[in-house]
């Protein structure tokens, strides 16, 4: 993750899983990842999307009545993330 992305954090992994389902059905490209602890100590699972899709994703979740903690614009430090280095990206 070397550029800003959208992260939606949740209180419960069951809400996160439900959110993934609803947003994929809406045509958004989303991914469940370990919840970044520097933005929320809550649920172990967060949802990553393109930053440009964040507002639409949140709106869709509100429409579907799915509880979430917050949407964030998120970026690791400008250098490559640990994951990018390990995966040779």
């Amino acid at each position, binding site marked *: 993750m070397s550029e800003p992305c959208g992260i939606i954090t949740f209180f419960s992994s069951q809400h996160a899983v439900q959110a993934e389902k609803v947003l994929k059905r809406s045509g958004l490209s989303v991914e469940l990842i370990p919840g970044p602890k520097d933005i929320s100590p809550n649920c*172990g699972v967060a949802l990553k999307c393109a930053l440009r899709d964040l507002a639409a994703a949140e709106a869709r979740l509100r429409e579907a009545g799915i509880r979430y903690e917050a949407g964030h614009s998120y970026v690791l430090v400008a250098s490559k993330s640990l994951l990018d280095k390990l995966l040779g990206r």
Partner: protein
Amino acid sequence: MAIYLDNAATSWPKHPAVLAAMQDYLSTAGGNPGRSGHSMSVEAARIVFAAREGLGRLFNAASPDRVTFAKNATEALNMIIFGLLGAGGHVVTTGIEHNAVMRPLRRLESLGAALTVVPCDRTGMVDPDDVKRVVTKNTRLIIATHASNVTGAIMPVAALGRIARECGVPFAVDAAQTAGCVPIDMQADNIDLLAFTGHKGLGGPQGTGGLALSPAVELPPLLYGGTGSVSEAEYQPDFLPDRLESGTLNAVGIAGLGAAVAELAKTGVAMLAAHKQGLVAALVKGAASIPGITVYGPADAADNAGVVSLNFDGLVCSEVGLALDRAFGILTRTGLHCAPAAHRTIGTFPQGTVRLSVSRFTTREEIGRVVSALGQIAEMAR
């Protein structure tokens, strides 16, 4: 091959998809759902959520996160009873309840709660008007079984739910004998709290079950602990499902339960109910025509969730059970079935009954062999 007629205790066999789902879970998904962010934990969480969704659709619950998992219906019933009632409240129940309802209620009664047990008729059916008559301004809960585990009698849950709604009292249903056997609609029937077990009519493994809640009611948890959420706080989360699910879920069991519910949905509970009613009708007709046998419960199989109790004149029920098992390979349950109240209602306390309970896999041919065996036992006993 045994003829298994103890499905009211636990259903057998399970659909092959249930075994496959549990094996798959342990081989591939295997993580602790909701605790970690890694792919196995997330996959486990997806499987649990899919089961939640399936159950929510089956019961017409308001939303999947208001379907919470417990280890069995007994745990769910304890959550309801101890969650809603304290020493000062009044609760109304019926005279056909299982001990999973009566024991917690009697415990609360000993602590000062007021308990009214509405008598049922000889077939085990309650009159909703009798329930309405005993509701007071202090009533905090009306709780009733959906169907008796002794007589199979299906209670008038829709009428009871209407009364509860009119009186502004939460309505809880013990669906241990009906989930997966009889259609259940929480919203249409004004059911606020539905306690269900996974290992009987739903066809899942033991160690699964839960509680579905309407939006009108909230419960404090019975168990406090780790939920994999709000981990920085030492206080129980207030949102569902986590509030009521402390500790690691029986996720492998829930994987099996989810598969079982998916299989039920393919056929439809209504069709399975009709199949079981046909079996019950044949069993009751056959048994009742044998001199020396008394059959209890509703006369009409349409009022039966799949359970038949009977007795032989002059024979102890346990002796009949032994004979059915050893001489004929027919597996039943004998005795009081953890429901002394039900036996007092139908007049079989303390001797108990022989109980035969069918499943979606029971066949007409098996029922024919059972009726023949009952006839032979009656012949021997004369």
